[in-house]
């Protein structure tokens, strides 16, 4: 079973990489860009029937640092 985990910075957490991307885009002449945030996409291949609780635990215990990041689980 394939899962996709989206890990994103919490709102309000400053993202220097996103800022750099935003500036680089405007440097390329894309004037309409008002923000960029960088996150991670993690693809997991897990046993069929892996419980939602287990996947949640994987996210909380390792895949995301919930001090600064949110996560979203999508089943492919």
């Amino acid at each position, binding site marked *: 079973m394939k899962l996709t985990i989206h890990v994103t910075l919490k709102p*309000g*957490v400053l993202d*220097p*990489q996103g800022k750099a991307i935003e500036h680089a885009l405007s440097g390329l002449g894309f004037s309409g860009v008002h923000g960029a945030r960088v996150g991670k996409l993690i693809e997991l291949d897990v046993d069929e029937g892996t419980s939602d609780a287990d996947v949640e635990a994987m996210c909380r*215990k*390792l895949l995301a*640092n919930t*001090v600064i990041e949110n996560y979203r689980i999508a089943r492919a």
Partner: protein
Amino acid sequence: MKTAVVVFPGSNCDRDIAVALEQVTGTKPVMVWHRDATLPDDVSLVAIPGGFSYGDYLRSGAIAARSPIMRDVVDRAGKGLPVLGICNGFQVLTEAGLLPGALMRNAGLDFVCRDVALTVGETRSIFTTGYSAGETVRVPVAHHDGNYVADPETLDRIEGEGQVAFRYAERVNGSARDIAGLVNTAGNVLGMMPHPERRIEAAHGGDDGRRLFEGLLRAVA
């Protein structure tokens, strides 16, 4: 005083901290591999060294914080064992939940590698007895992810509880409230981005770092 240094794949300041600890304590530290299940029973201090454990994969310190030895480090820290995390070691301690907050990419995106001025916090912990409160010291930094982040309530609490051990006295990496190092509420765990082990003798340009270890020895031994 017997000490231990935890070594992860990608640690690169493990030998520097071992030299500093041996010089100050007179005893070679026990080097503990990340796959070991337990620390030696009789150690009075465990150091988590700088470096790039697991190549900084996922997040700096994230994988190291979940390695077998860290379960015992967390357990023993809870029982009062002094734990000193430097640079990547600080990142590991936050990822392991021993210290609040997180260390993110430097605000300027640059890897910062230079001597910086630090102000010693008001905190009177075992780690700062070698300094006077409010004193300015010079210690090198070398990191890419040293930008300390925590929510405003946590920052207020850390400051209110007097957990800030060191602050940057100049702009370095964008850290919230210039936090360069902090202790846990019990005061037995210190995480700091600057490298005191790289400033222990005249050949290093000074011994401001050595005083941390000397103070620690006096406080713990």
